[in-house]
């Protein structure tokens, strides 16, 4: 058997991959529940505004990606922060990854449980999803990054189904009124942070520097990915407004899936189940990427960088995450209020990480005077 090198680097991937990575990491779980928290039609503008904000973040991100340090991976970070700080930061990062992993995996398993297997324990579903993620992740970072293409091609087309809601008799322009906010409630702040948090995800690209081929077009590609997400969010939100009307929207827990349940197809009566299954592609891709990041981060945090990466190590960390996730599931997710707490925690954590990671890196870069270098 060939020895597994999970973090080996043979190829670098161009802007297209960066674009798809940004897009697919932003379309994970929150977009499925987003409309029921946004509710009001004027949130369309907030969606777009935060999208632009996220663009600024990507600008900072691309600055980091353009440096030589980023393509050095771990050593680059050590040069920037010093080894101890890097170890400390990656230790903190473990919790962020774990939180994000828990929310997206448990959230999705719960959806599957609700709509497809009502009597199945979500832990089983998490187990199965992890089993396959582990397989994907065991192919190494390189192949996992490449898997984004497959995940994109298998999931993106689904959104075109929702065009159906833009035609009468469902579509009524009046459902989108009023277009400007008349009063700003406290809940709207939650919605704002939810949006911010759902745009988060691309900050993990910081750690994928070695595999990304960067040039002066990188920012453009990152923006394309972000813009695609904005379009998708706005499109889905408008569709859900047209379908539910803003009054009923808050009562539906999974608006997007409920909309999908309304589709009719002569071959499959309930096309939403097929769509949910295809959505798994995206989930599996993201989870496997995060698993690899988790494994890498834990290696850094516990100072095992000199040891070669192995399948066993990955398996062990996946096992740890699985145990952690089962605990989170039992302790938090299954009761509604605590689940809400966890969601809020992820909303805040996502927002913070998306905001601070690129900002801090760029600030430290400025301080240390790291020069940009444009690799071709």
């Amino acid at each position, binding site marked *: 058997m060939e020895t597994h090198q999970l973090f080996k680097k043979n*190829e670098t*991937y161009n802007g*297209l*991959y960066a674009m798809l990575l940004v897009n697919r990491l932003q379309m994970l779980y929150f977009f499925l529940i987003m409309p029921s928290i946004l509710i009001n039609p004027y949130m369309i503008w907030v969606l777009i505004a935060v999208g632009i904000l996220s663009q600024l973040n990507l600008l900072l991100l691309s600055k980091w990606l353009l440096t030589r340090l980023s393509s050095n991976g771990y050593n680059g970070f050590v040069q920037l922060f010093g080894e101890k700080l890097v170890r400390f930061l990656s230790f903190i990062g473990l919790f962020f990854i774990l939180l994000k992993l828990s929310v997206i995996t448990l959230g999705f398993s719960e959806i*599957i449980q609700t709509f*497809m*297997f009502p009597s199945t324990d979500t832990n089983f*579903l998490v187990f*199965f*999803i992890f089993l*396959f993620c582990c*397989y*994907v992740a065991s*192919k*190494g970072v390189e*192949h996992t990054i*490449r*898997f984004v*293409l*497959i995940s994109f*091609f*298998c999931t993106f087309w689904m959104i075109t189904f929702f065009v159906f809601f833009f035609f009468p008799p469902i579509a009524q322009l009046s459902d989108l009124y009023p277009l400007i906010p008349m009063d700003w409630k406290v809940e709207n702040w939650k919605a704002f942070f939810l949006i911010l948090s759902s745009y988060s995800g691309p900050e993990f690209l910081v750690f994928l520097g070695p595999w990304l081929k960067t040039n002066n077009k990188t920012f453009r590609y990152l923006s394309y990915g972000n813009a695609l997400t904005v379009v998708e969010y706005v499109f889905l939100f408008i569709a859900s407004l047209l379908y539910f009307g803003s009054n009923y929207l808050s009562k539906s827990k999974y608006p997007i899936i409920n909309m999908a349940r309304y589709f009719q197809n*002569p*071959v*499959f*009566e*309930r096309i939403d*189940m*097929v769509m*949910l*299954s*295809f959505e*798994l*592609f995206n989930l*599996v891709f993201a989870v496997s990427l995060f698993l690899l990041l988790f494994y890498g981060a834990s290696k850094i945090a516990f100072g095992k960088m000199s040891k070669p990466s192995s399948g066993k190590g990955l398996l062990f960390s996946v096992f740890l995450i699985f145990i952690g996730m089962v605990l989170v599931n039992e302790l938090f997710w299954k009761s509604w209020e605590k689940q809400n707490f966890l969601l809020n925690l992820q909303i805040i954590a996502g927002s913070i990480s998306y905001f601070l990671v690129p900002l801090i890196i760029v600030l430290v870069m400025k301080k240390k005077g790291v020069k940009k270098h444009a690799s071709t």
Partner: protein
Amino acid sequence: MEKKQIESKLVTQSIAESELSIEALKKILVQMDDAEFVEIDISDIRKIHLVYIRTLIDQEKLNESIIKPLTSCSKPSIQDCIVNSSIIPIPTFIEAKKQLFSGSILLFDSSQNLWLAVPLKNPIGRAIESSETETILFGAKDSFSEQVEQNITLIRRRLPIHELKAEKFTVGSLSETSVVLMYIEGLTNPDFVSTVKEKISEINFDLFFDSSQVAAFLEEHQNSIFPQFQQTDRPDVVTYSLELGKITLLVDNTPFALVAPITFFHLFQSPEDYINRWVVASFLRIIRYVSFILSVTLIPFYVALTTHHYQMIPIQTLLVLVDSRSKLPFTPFWEAFIMLIFIEIIKEASLRMPTKTGQTLGVIGGIVIGQAAVEAGFASNVLIVMVGISTIASFLIPNYLMTKANSLIQLMLLIFSSLLGIIGIALGIIAILAHLNSLSSIKQPYFSPVSPFFRKDWIDLFIRGPLVKMMERPEHLKPLKLKRYKTRR
């Protein structure tokens, strides 16, 4: 080549040291009925010894071009006498042995103490016939045969350029099979050539009787069910592949050439694609992909829907399904599993039988047993229909090795679908795609041009674009010359 010699030296160490002489040859050819030692007296003092293996040489030609000229010749040198055959002087015993077993006649002129070899290979072999594994209606009908030289001829006729290189290697310590590596210099990426050369030099095995065995030693992923070398016996396919920038391996004694690097999508391309009009060809190619997906997922879907997701079945279909399933003893999974295994048995049996019996078998297996299974209440007629569709659909894939892999994928998805319904199928497909994504064929990604993404190559991927639009070679094959046309000055 040096390495090869060292190897063969190791094997025949004891004999290698002996000097080249008639006695030494007699020693190794003992108890060989077809080994012949002949002496020809030219003059009183001059005797010429002929050593050959009867079954390997052309005996008629032996008389024509060696014995007759030698007996009637008065010139002192043998080389001057034999004019219509090539003559190779042999310096060592090993070389003599090699020549002897490749169908040459050894000549020993005792007066000059000179050893010579005259190749006179027995031409027994198949004539050029039309391909039976990759039949097409229109297009060239010739196919490769077992003789490698003849196969090279077929390719050379199609590519009469000096850039077409053919390097010969010998593999197999017992079979001494010659493998010819063909590529177009200045077009094919030299990385491919060096990779293959390196791998061939590493082969350490005794016997090769088919090219797939050679492929097994060249592949990077032994445990995959997907073939990483395309096997074809059509010279036009090989030529087209060479033109795209791939390499080809011709193996002696088998009509199947190996083409690499290939991608998953090459398995769905048929030579006829480039003969049909592009719209039709595109349509047919899409049908092939669809039928592959259908053949792999149809029965798993049936199992998933009937065991887990009854909500998804349209009510009209449900009426039929409930009716046909109501009296069956097995759950859908076991029903489907048994039927699939059964179909595999029929498929395998009809292959092993002579052609005419095979047809009867198909009829009996397909119709009689299928119908009887329904009537006896072993399987539902809906399932029989689906098994039929998916089996026929699986035959649409032009690559035969892939057709075989198909049933395995189907079985795997079947198990997942019975476990987790559609989610199981989706997870199974994810696993397959992740596997394909990580595969490589002579170190080139197996799932390109989808992943990694090459936009321009999509013109000849799911569709077959018009030829006049395909002015560039596929990028994912990294050819040295991307453009297919001559640049005008």
